């Protein structure tokens, strides 16, 4: 017990001394770890949001809203509804009045209701929400309804055939770019931690010489430097975790108010996973960097 405690005490007090003895280098390695983890955390959250959007868009993909001109009388709208319902490709048609559309619009997250109230009149059109059996028929139906004089012209429908493909492409590009960035930064941070440990070993070369001379084991000599790498990883990770942990929710709320029609959501359970991953990755960076540092420079 005493021996173990001596070992831990020696490793931590030496590591802490090393950290401050070459503070400039230590701070540089903490910064690079911090940047890597910030990039990692942000990327994971962005990709997760894009995934959520794709999933939501896919459920909406079998439906199309046909916007009706404000001049269309209700009876004509009902005739049009009946006409569409008789189409074999269509499974369901729902009429949404201007008032219902406004009520729906008010429920969008992060939208200030007073914005609409200041408009005075209701700018939203009434619509027929058409659900189809096979989403491949959506394009043809879209083409047909656009020719009807009852339909609003700007815009006629909410049909956007490529939106899912576009989001998936965006997610893929963001994912690959982020991954390349993170791999590059990871290599850089491991290298910088290695240099930090090398500096610490250089500053302690006399002590290491004496330690080996009086019979300290290789691992007793190595532990302080491994611990120093872990300290670098932990500090970098904690700062990044705090920023991402407290910044995610405000970021989502701000984006929601800008991208009103994008179904962006705050996901606290996923956030916890991301924060844990960041902390783990920080420890990994610290231990790999310091292991490489001691492996190369403590061999006889």
């Amino acid at each position, binding site marked *: 017990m005493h021996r173990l405690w001596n070992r831990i005490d020696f490793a931590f007090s030496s590591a802490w001394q090393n950290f401050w003895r070459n503070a400039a280098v230590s701070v540089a390695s903490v910064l690079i770890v911090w940047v890597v983890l910030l990039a990692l955390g942000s990327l994971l959250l962005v990709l997760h949001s894009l995934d959520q959007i794709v999933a939501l868009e896919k459920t909406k993909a079998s439906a199309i809203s046909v916007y009706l001109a404000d001049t269309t009388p209700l009876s004509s709208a009902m005739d049009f509804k009946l006409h569409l319902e008789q189409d074999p490709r269509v499974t369901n048609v729902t009429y949404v009045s201007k008032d219902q559309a406004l009520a729906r619009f008010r429920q969008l997250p992060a939208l200030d209701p007073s914005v609409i109230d200041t408009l005075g009149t209701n700018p939203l059109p009434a619509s027929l929400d058409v659900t189809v059996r096979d989403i491949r028929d959506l394009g043809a139906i879209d083409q047909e309804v656009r020719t009807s004089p009852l339909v609003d012209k700007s815009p006629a429908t909410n049909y956007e055939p490529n939106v899912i493909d576009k989001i998936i492409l965006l997610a893929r590009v963001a994912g690959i770019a982020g991954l390349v960035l993170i791999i590059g930064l990871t290599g850089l941070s491991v290298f910088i931690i290695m240099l930090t440990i090398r500096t610490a070993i250089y500053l302690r070369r006399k002590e290491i010489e004496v330690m080996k001379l009086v019979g300290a084991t290789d691992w*007793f000599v190595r532990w302080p430097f491994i611990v120093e790498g872990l300290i670098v990883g932990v500090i970098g990770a904690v700062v990044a975790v705090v920023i991402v942990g407290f910044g995610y929710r405000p970021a989502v709320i701000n984006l929601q108010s800008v991208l009103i029609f994008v179904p962006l959501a705050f996901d606290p359970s996923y956030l916890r996973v991301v924060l844990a991953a960041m902390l783990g990755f920080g420890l990994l960076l610290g231990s790999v960097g310091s292991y490489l540092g001691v492996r190369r420079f403590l061999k006889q």
Partner: protein
Amino acid sequence: MATIIPAAPQISLDHVQKTYPNGTVALRDVTLEIPKQDFVFLVGPSGAGKSTLVRLLIREEKATTGTIRVEGQDLSRLKRRHLPYLRRKIGMVFQDFKLLPNLTVFQNVGFALRVTEGALRHLKPKVEEVLSIVGLEGKENKYPDQLSGGEQQRVAIARALVHDPRIFLADEPTGNLDPATSWEIIQLLLQINARGTTVLMATHNREIVDVMRRRVVAIEGGQIVRDEDAGGYHAPALESH
């Protein structure tokens, strides 16, 4: 220590050759036996191979050919992870003391126990014990630069004694000291030897070797040229047969 064969010498070199990677032959066919509690001077000009021999004994270097045994242990077969335990049986001091300037006398000596995972509660009495052997009571809280050269070498000797070594290797321990101080260090090594520790001292100090009349092993050009009990620094001029 079940591995020790009772009659075997404590240190033995059997046809040892050491060739460095650059081709320099530092030791050539060296055969030497040192029994327990012996006191041996290792003499010879600089570059003769004395330091190489010392480095081989603590396995800082491996012999190219031949066998070296220390405490019954074949050093060529010693695994790297067992090396620290060999070092704990061998106390070492050098010409340049190798003290840590930012630690006090007490801490320098205690350092050897701390880094070898000795239990901390035994540290203080042990450090006090070895400091009293070398006569440095009262100097525990001084830093190396506040001490004379002789005192610094005493701290190094105290540090080498904390593991109760069976073998004491001194590589030019008096090289940086004036004659009077050198004699004090020699007295200390004799005292350590009298307590049952084998002492091997590599030295240039002709006066000490000549006065002591102890066993002398002379090395020149990597070879043992003389090995005599109660010898002098140089071979007797008139020894003919």
